[in-house]
C-alpha cells in the first residue's frame, strides 16, 4: 500500500514538474543566393529568433529575449533544375545577448529533390548534420549528429510562373531526428511553416509566415513550442553579372 502511495505521489510530482514552455516571437531572416559558376551557387543566410512577449510560466518569469543567432554559409551544386546537393558551415549562438549563451559550430550536407504533384511543386530535402555544441562547464565541443527531412511546397499564386509583382505560397514541415551524442529524444524537433511572399523584382522577395518550432527540451520529454512570425528578405543576385 505504501509502495502504491509512493508511486502515486511520484506520478503527481512528475506531473507537476512537467514544464511545457510556449513562447511567442518573431524571426527576421535574410537569405542571399548568388552564382559562383554555371553549376555552383552560394547561399548566405542569417536569422535571429526573438521571444517577443514576456510571460510567467509555472511561477518562472521569462522576459523578452533574443533566443538564437543563426549564421549559415553554404555551397550548392546544381545537378539539374530538380536536384541540388549542398554543404555548409553554420554558426549558431543560443541566448546570444545574455550570460547563459552557448555556441555551436555545425557542418551539414544535404540534397533537395523537387517534383510536381498535381501542378504543385513539391520539394524533399534531406540533411545530415554534424553538430559541435559547446559545453560551458568543460569548454569542450562534443559532436552529435542529426538527420532532418523537410517536405515542402512553393508555388506562385498568380499564373504558372512567379513573375515580378506577384505573390507566392511557401510551406513545409520538417522532422528532426537526433542520431548520436547528447539528446533528449530521437524524434527531437518538428518545424511547421506556412507563408506568403511577394516578388519585388531586383529587390528580391519579401516573405512573411507563421513558423511553429516544437522541440523536446529535456529527458522528461517536456516540449518547448515557439510560435513565430517569420519575416524573410530573399535575394538572388550576382555581383558580377554580364549585361544582356
Amino acid at each position: 500500500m505504501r509502495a502504491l502511495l509512493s508511486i502515486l505521489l511520484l506520478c503527481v510530482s512528475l506531473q507537476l514538474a512537467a514544464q511545457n514552455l510556449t513562447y511567442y516571437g518573431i524571426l527576421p531572416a535574410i537569405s542571399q543566393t548568388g552564382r559562383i559558376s554555371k553549376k555552383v551557387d552560394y547561399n548566405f543566410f542569417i536569422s535571429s529568433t526573438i521571444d517577443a512577449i514576456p510571460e510567467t510560466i509555472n511561477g518562472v518569469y521569462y522576459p523578452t529575449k533574443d533566443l538564437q543567432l543563426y549564421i549559415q554559409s553554404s555551397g550548392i551544386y546544381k545537378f539539374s533544375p530538380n536536384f541540388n546537393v549542398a554543404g555548409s558551415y553554420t554558426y549558431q549562438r543560443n541566448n546570444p545577448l545574455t550570460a547563459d549563451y552557448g555556441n555551436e559550430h555545425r557542418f551539414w550536407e544535404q540534397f533537395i529533390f523537387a517534383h510536381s504533384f498535381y501542378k504543385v511543386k513539391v520539394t524533399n530535402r534531406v540533411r545530415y548534420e554534424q553538430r559541435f555544441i559547446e559545453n560551458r562547464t568543460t569548454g569542450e565541443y562534443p559532436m552529435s549528429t542529426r538527420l532532418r527531412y523537410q517536405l515542402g511546397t512553393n508555388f506562385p499564386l498568380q499564373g504558372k510562373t512567379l513573375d515580378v509583382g506577384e505573390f507566392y505560397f511557401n510551406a513545409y514541415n520538417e522532422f528532426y531526428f537526433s542520431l548520436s551524442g547528447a539528446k533528449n529524444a530521437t524524434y527531437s524537433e518538428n518545424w511547421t511553416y506556412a507563408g506568403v511572399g511577394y516578388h519585388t523584382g531586383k529587390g528580391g522577395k519579401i516573405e512573411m509566415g507563421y513558423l511553429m518550432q516544437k522541440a523536446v527540451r529535456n529527458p522528461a520529454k517536456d516540449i518547448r513550442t515557439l510560435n513565430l512570425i517569420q519575416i524573410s528578405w530573399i535575394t538572388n543576385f550576382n555581383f558580377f553579372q554580364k549585361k544582356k
Partner: protein
Amino acid sequence: MRSVLLMLALLIANLALQAQDSDRKVNPDKLPASILPYIDQKYPDHDRVHFYTEKIGDTLYYEAKFEQHEDEYDLLFDVDGNLYETEKTLPEHELKEAIKDSIHTYLKSQFEEYKILKVQEVELKGRLLYELNVKGKKKGNKAYYEIYFDRKGKYVGTEDVILNSIPSMF
C-alpha cells in the same frame, strides 16, 4: 524590439524603392494604346494578360504573358507599341517530320545524350525560329541549353542556360 521593427520597416521601404527601377508589373492603363487591341484581335480566346517591363541592354520593352487554348504566349513590344518578339510553347510532336529529323540530326551530332525539354515558336523582328530547351551531355558533362533552329530545321545558334538553385532556407 522597437529597433528591430524600425530596421524591418526601413528595409521594406528600401526594397520598394529598388523595385521601382527594375523589371516590374505594369498596369494596362500605362501601356501604349495599340497593345491591348492587338492581343484581343490576334488571340481572341486569351486568358488574363500580365504585363511587365523588360530591359534588354538599354532598351525598354513591354512584355505580355498569357495563355490561349493551353498554349503559353510571351510577347514583347517596344515603347511605341510595336511588336518586337512573339514566343509560343509547342508540343514537340507538332513539329513537321522533316524539321524534327533535321533537329535530331544536329542534336545527335553535338551530344552523347540529350533530351528536348521544351519547344517554342519564336518570331523575332520578322524572323521565324524554333527555340528548344535541351538537356545534353558533352564529354561526360550534363548541361542545359537553348538551341535555335530556323523554320526548315537548320541550326542557328546556342545559348547556355544557367540553372537557379532550388529555394531552401534554414
